[in-house]
């Protein structure tokens, strides 16, 4: 698997480097412009996590665009190893994005443009949880359908959001009681669990759940990818 990660790094480092440059500019520019102080640390880390979760699209997108899946699949590696490397690579790319964003925030703070936002104790849990959930949902589609699958995933989630917003605006919150109650119940259950277990045990449980979700997603992706034809 390390050889596959090394291969991806050699073949993609220019694009990744350029992306991280633009990424740092984005995270430097946004908070620098918004000096009202309304951006809380929770919002910032949530935005960064969600945004960084989509960075691994670069790897899958380039491989798909250049029809280079066949190159990886003709190398002496199993398809399962290719899938595992995609997950590990995806995590590395996303976490590097978080590191870049954090460095940008630190730089802004050092330059006195914006005071350093105090990190919350839940930061090491929130970031991997958000990244883990998005990668677990996204990668099986990417590995089966390539960039089309990823775009489909993005469009479908956007459309779902638009539909829910429209329904809510047109018919009031009663139009989507099931979803509303499901969200409220889940949030309530998570809150109860947090209070019951305490922060440390809750964090461990949450991270274990994310790891289990990713393992299951990786297994599904491997099953799918073994059947893919090039």
């Amino acid at each position, binding site marked *: 698997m390390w050889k596959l990660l090394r*291969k991806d790094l050699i073949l993609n480092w220019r694009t990744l480097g350029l992306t991280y440059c633009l990424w740092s500019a984005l995270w430097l520019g946004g908070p620098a412009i918004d000096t009202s102080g309304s951006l809380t640390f929770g919002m910032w880390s949530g935005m960064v996590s969600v945004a960084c979760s989509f960075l691994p699209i670069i790897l899958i997108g380039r491989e798909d665009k250049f029809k280079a899946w066949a190159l990886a699949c003709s190398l002496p590696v199993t398809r399962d190893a290719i899938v595992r490397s995609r997950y590990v690579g995806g995590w590395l790319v996303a976490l590097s994005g978080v590191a870049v964003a954090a460095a940008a925030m630190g730089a802004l703070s050092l330059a006195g443009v914006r005071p350093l936002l105090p990190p919350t104790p839940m930061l090491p849990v929130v970031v991997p949880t958000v990244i883990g959930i998005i990668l677990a949902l996204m990668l099986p589609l990417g590995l089966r359908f390539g960039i089309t699958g990823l775009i489909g995933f993005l469009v479908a989630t956007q459309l779902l959001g638009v539909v829910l917003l429209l329904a809510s605006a047109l018919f009031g919150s009663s139009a989507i009681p099931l979803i509303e109650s499901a969200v409220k119940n889940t949030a309530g259950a998570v809150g109860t669990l947090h209070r019951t277990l305490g922060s440390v045990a809750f964090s461990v449980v949450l991270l274990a759940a994310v790891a289990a979700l990713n393992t299951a997603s990786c297994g599904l992706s491997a099953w799918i990818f073994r059947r893919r*034809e090039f």
Partner: protein
Amino acid sequence: MTDQAICVRGLCKRYRGFALKNVDLDVPRGYVTGLIGPNGAGKTTLIKLIMNLVRRDAGSISVLGLDNLTDEVAVKSRIGFIYDEPPFYPDVSLADSARAVGPFYPNWSDRRFAELAGRFGLPLRKRFKALSHGMKMKFALAVALSHDAELLLMDEPTAGLDLTFRRELLNELGAILQDERKSVLFSTHITADLERIADYVTFIRDGAIVFSLPKDELRERWGVVRADRTTIGRLPAAIVRGRRERPHGAEALVADMTAAREAVGPGAVIDRASFDEVMVFMTRGGEHVEAA
């Protein structure tokens, strides 16, 4: 050690509108086997099945004595695979592409790669997209040969190349193969490629192997008989591989010129069959009538 580089038995693969049907194929070790057939005959599918790039529906494939699925990693580390469109990243330099791929192969040699790159005139600092199609194929060949592959699988390696480049590529390939006695299976629809480097010829049509023979046997024994329809009708069915009716007579492709001569006597013209003629006769399913 098995004498077959590739041994395919009962291989089936079904797509909508096309099926590879119960294919049996032996590719002898140490020789060059040309896989020839019209477009859509199943050449690429067969090669992709050997590489496990597509899933087989039935049958078995043994490569260098190993099963291509259960021993996939071991098999692929001993194969050099060349696509008709090599799938390297276009914006990555040749040196970096080789650096990315090399470590996967236990027998990869940087020295060998540098030597081949020099011999082929490959500009290692240039990006892949900056190369002509011919140079791309040479790069793919250099990569395939740098890990000392025992078997080269090439899917239409000469397609899209001009005559000069094609000849140059085949000359390079021929010279290397002669030195090292590697086994090669290459698909093509260019008969001249077979003339130049193949030792064995396998003809595939509509997803089925029609024949698989040593090239010399094909060249020395197969012929085209030209005569009137009655004379052509006297040919034993067992040796007739194809028939063509013309406005003023008929032609038949035969697998045994001596037997054909005995059957038709002096009233017919019998010439050796060129690969082009074999292709034309066989492609049409053996029988066709030309309009007056």
